[in-house]
């Protein structure tokens, strides 16, 4: 099986959610968020926004089936809420912001703790995911971005966050 065929089969990010959700109101918006791998960031972190867009471009080349899109929240708390309610699965964040969201502390206290894993390091930022982001999805995303040369392996327990289990186990 070709790699992309495998990815498409494994990710299952195309037709199935559309069919499942197309009859509920906003169902296709939900499907949009399932159909596309959304990479969150927030207004005010211009570097993070640019990195997220770069990751989208890289994924379009290396993992087109992910159909990645950038979603920019108006402020960090809104991003925490979108991550916490499973409306967005991944985000590009500075380590201290990622830690705050994961702990649900400080400005993120109103949104509660949102368990996060680190998928990769992107310059000074982290690509994080919800802790329930499937292992094989994390593996595919990391492999695709590593191929692009855009990211590097996350340090173990970087910023107090666990490395995503999909990142090759021998590396952490």
């Amino acid at each position, binding site marked *: 099986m070709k790699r992309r065929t495998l990815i498409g089969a494994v990710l299952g990010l195309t037709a199935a959610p559309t069919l499942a959700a197309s009859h509920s*109101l906003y169902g*296709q918006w939900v499907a949009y968020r399932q159909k596309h791998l959304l990479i969150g960031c927030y207004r005010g972190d211009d570097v993070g926004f640019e990195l997220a867009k770069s990751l989208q471009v890289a994924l379009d080349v290396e993992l087109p089936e992910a159909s990645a899109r950038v*979603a920019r929240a108006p402020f960090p708390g809104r991003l925490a809420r979108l991550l916490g309610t499973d409306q967005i699965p991944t985000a590009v964040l500075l380590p201290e912001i990622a830690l705050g969201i994961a702990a649900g502390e400080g400005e993120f206290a109103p949104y509660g703790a949102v368990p996060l894993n680190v998928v990769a390091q992107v310059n000074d930022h982290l690509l994080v995911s919800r802790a329930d982001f499937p292992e094989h999805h994390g593996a595919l995303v990391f492999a695709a971005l590593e191929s692009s040369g855009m990211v590097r392996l996350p340090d173990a327990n970087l910023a107090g966050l666990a490395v995503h289990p999909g990142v090759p186990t021998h590396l952490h």
Partner: protein
Amino acid sequence: MQTVMRTTLLLGSVALWSAASADTSDQKWQSKVLIAKDGEHCVDDPNCFNRYHPEIPTIATAKPGDYVTFETRDALDSDLQLDSVAEDLAAVDLNLVHPMTGPLFVETAERGDVLAVTLIDIIPDEYGYTVIAPGFGFLRDIYTEPYVVNWKLDNNVAVSDQMPGIAVPFEAFLGSVGTLPGEDEVATWKAREAALAAAGGAVAGPEPSGALPTAVCGPEGSHAADCLRTIPPRENGGNMDVQQMQIGTTMLFPCFIDGCGLFIGDVHYAQGDGEVGGTAIETGAVVTVKVDVRKGVSLPAPQVEGGAQIKAMEPSKFYQTVGLPLKDANEIPPTHSYIDGDELVGLSNLSEDLTLAARHALKQMIDYLTTNHNLTPEQAYILSSIAVDLRVGQVVDIPNYVVTAVLNMDVFQE
């Protein structure tokens, strides 16, 4: 003596001037109520909510005849702004739709009465937006990616750097206005919508996440499972999106609870009949209405009394496409996808179908706009949402009912 007279004249002048400075502004007769906006978002504002239930507490009281000013928020309770881009739309939290200001308790109003709401004034914010939201809108199967147009507003026209050469006239109205449902209505509407959802219809059931007020509708709220979403209009009004409800008209609502629980929000700066893209020019605003109670009459659903408002909205120049209930064979538009019928797929002509006729008219209008006015398909869809009226031509000439799409050509600047 001469000095005295001069002094007297001078004093007289001062007195007259003084009276003129007071002019008419110190003469008051209106009884006014203000429901102010507080905080950046609905969640910060005790005068704001985004679900419907009779247990939502009223936050202000008015007498019949009072002028009530509501400070309202945009439909998405968003942080969109003049430089917003599609990536910002992708991060909108849909659970926050629609923030409503109120509810207002109107004295003497009882269940079974009619609440008359005369629209006195709308002062829009300086910013508004029109968006294409994935999965929403009449052509949601064709326009699948987020798209944002940011508008600069005043009380005359709306203009946008993203829609060069276009100025949309100010024809504001209340996208959402209505009264709170009673316990019986909540039970009835919830049951019928659940049945429709089970049949595959497009329905949003109660969603406690993001629901306000939290104490009633939130995840731990007292009525979390029964708070109705604001998206569908119902017999209590709500998200009707009817542009003829202009300043000067009187909207009549059934009153389902004592005090009625009037709410207002989701102001549309301008919108075409159909709001085909899913949004109008969405904005917050300061809205003033006059409330009255009519005893001894009842209504099954909202009705409207108006004057020359419809005439005033008519374009001086228009372009019109004619839609018929035609489609491609093997095509099932999203509006028809829940209908269980194998025959539908193979037909290229449906019988007595206004929805399909509207789709046919709209697609032709978008083709016209892209071909003749140098707009992208997305721009044409956006313009159709705010300046094209879908109108029923006839519902008798079987099988082909007609819906037309009427473009207001006045939006094109010289």
